[in-house]
């Protein structure tokens, strides 16, 4: 791990998203604990001065956050703070709504693609950035077809390769052992937790670079929730994860980095261990300790 001296407050409160040039995945440094030690993270996506508008309403205000490569970053904050709006910028979900507008940039590394750039095709973005929603939403098709769907869209036709890729994705989402004998059954016959893991498999099948989770366990029981959380922890080996959650303990359990948002602004970004033991901002402390509102 590299160390570098950085201005502690500036690094912690407004992470430097102007990455060091010259490497495939740029690095930024953030200060950790009360010493001058800093931790350097590899940036998969650099969010720089991002604002987002619904018509005249400015829902996101100048967000600057480094999204660490192959790490889990959690977005927390009260309802209406903009965390889901922020998440949806990454795969251009807002483009499906009229009269919306982005300002600033989300630069995907290593190829410096601005995900919200005007000339960038949202379909191409969605090919690279997967998403899992609050309620499991499998297609009314077989388990196999749910996972194969995205692969077929990308032109994969070979039956043996398809089967191989489907198995790989189902193993990746820790579902294979439970469904390997019922691949042709309807996905709608699975339990809620299984359906959600199927949706994760569907997203994983197309090998996304970033996987977005929008409150993925809010409709699940504690055991299914634990399985999804465990899965998210293992996914960090292969994909960058960004998760929105209302469950503070979940953010503490699964995330490496946590961003606290309020009224469309980033209040604090730091390592999860720092945020949940000694946050720098009073607003963060009030929110995570339940003193908010």
């Amino acid at each position, binding site marked *: 791990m590299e160390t570098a001296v950085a201005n502690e407050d500036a690094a912690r409160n407004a992470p430097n998203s102007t990455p060091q040039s010259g490497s495939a995945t740029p690095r930024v440094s953030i200060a950790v604990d009360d010493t001058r030690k800093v931790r350097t993270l590899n940036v998969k996506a650099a969010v720089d001065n991002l604002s987002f508008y619904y018509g005249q309403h400015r829902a996101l205000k100048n967000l600057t956050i480094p999204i660490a490569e192959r790490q889990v970053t959690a977005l927390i904050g009260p309802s209406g703070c903009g965390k889901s709006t922020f998440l949806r910028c990454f795969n251009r979900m807002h483009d499906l709504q009229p009269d919306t507008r982005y300002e600033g940039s989300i630069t995907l590394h290593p190829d410096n693609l601005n995900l919200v750039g005007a000339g960038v095709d949202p379909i191409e973005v969605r090919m690279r950035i997967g998403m899992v929603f609050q309620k499991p939403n499998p297609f009314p098709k077989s388990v196999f077809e749910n996972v194969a769907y995205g692969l077929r869209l990308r032109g994969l036709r070979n039956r043996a390769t398809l089967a191989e890729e489907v198995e790989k994705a189902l193993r990746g989402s820790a579902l294979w052992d439970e469904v390997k004998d019922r691949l042709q059954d309807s996905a709608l016959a699975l339990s809620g937790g299984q359906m959600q893991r199927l949706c994760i498999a569907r997203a994983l099948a197309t090998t996304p670079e970033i996987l977005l989770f929008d409150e993925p366990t809010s409709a699940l029981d504690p055991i299914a929730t634990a399985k999804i959380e465990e899965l998210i922890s293992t996914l960090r080996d292969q994909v960058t994860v960004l998760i929105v959650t209302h469950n*503070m303990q979940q953010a503490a359990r699964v995330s490496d980095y946590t961003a606290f948002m309020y009224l469309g602004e980033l209040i604090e970004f730091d390592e999860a261990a720092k945020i949940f033991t000694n946050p*720098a901002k009073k607003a963060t*402390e009030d929110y995570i300790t*339940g*003193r908010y509102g």
Partner: protein
Amino acid sequence: MHSDPMEGHTAKAFDGALTQLRLHTVGMGGLVIDQVSTAVRALLDADAALAQTVLSRELQVNEMERAVDREAFELIALHQPVAGDLRMATAVSRITVELERVGDESKKIARFASRMASGEPQGPVRAVARYLQHMAELTSGMLRDAVRALDESDSDLADQVRARDSELDAEFAAALRQLLTLAMQDQRNLGVTIDTVFALKGLERIGDHAKNIAEQVVFIASGRDMRHKKAVGRASA
């Protein structure tokens, strides 16, 4: 940073549990401070009844340690505290250990006082009475301020407590020199002299415990870990 303890949680039961935890710890602190001063008074006055008071209250100190520790444990299990609340719960567990050890030191001084009351020679204690008195005042003051700092989440006051420990160490060294001189002049009371050294050392240790409590208060209030760091600044008392 630390949330104002007066500012409530949305969950009132959590508020109540945190407040009770703090109050019970402060209450235990109050009893322990009284144990120190009563034990030293019993020693200086060779008062068997006062010594007995300390010894019988020792059980109460132990019970309070168990009760407060259980409360902190349950608070963590039932409310899953984070940030300042979590620091409070974990630090209180450590503070009760420190307080219980202060109680143990007081108990040892009280036992010595009992022996003095039953006719042991008083020369060595008399020789350092002024130091015993002063060290008891210093340690009680440090403990009182450490507990008040906990009650009021006052890290400045806690920092002052840490700085005062060196004064106590100096008093201990001076008293020790005095006793050594005495022992060299008159070796008949060597046993009591050694017990007196233990009493002085006990008070010096109580100062360390007060300092440790103050460090935990700084941790609660600011998240800074002050353990094994030198106290800076000037003692104000």
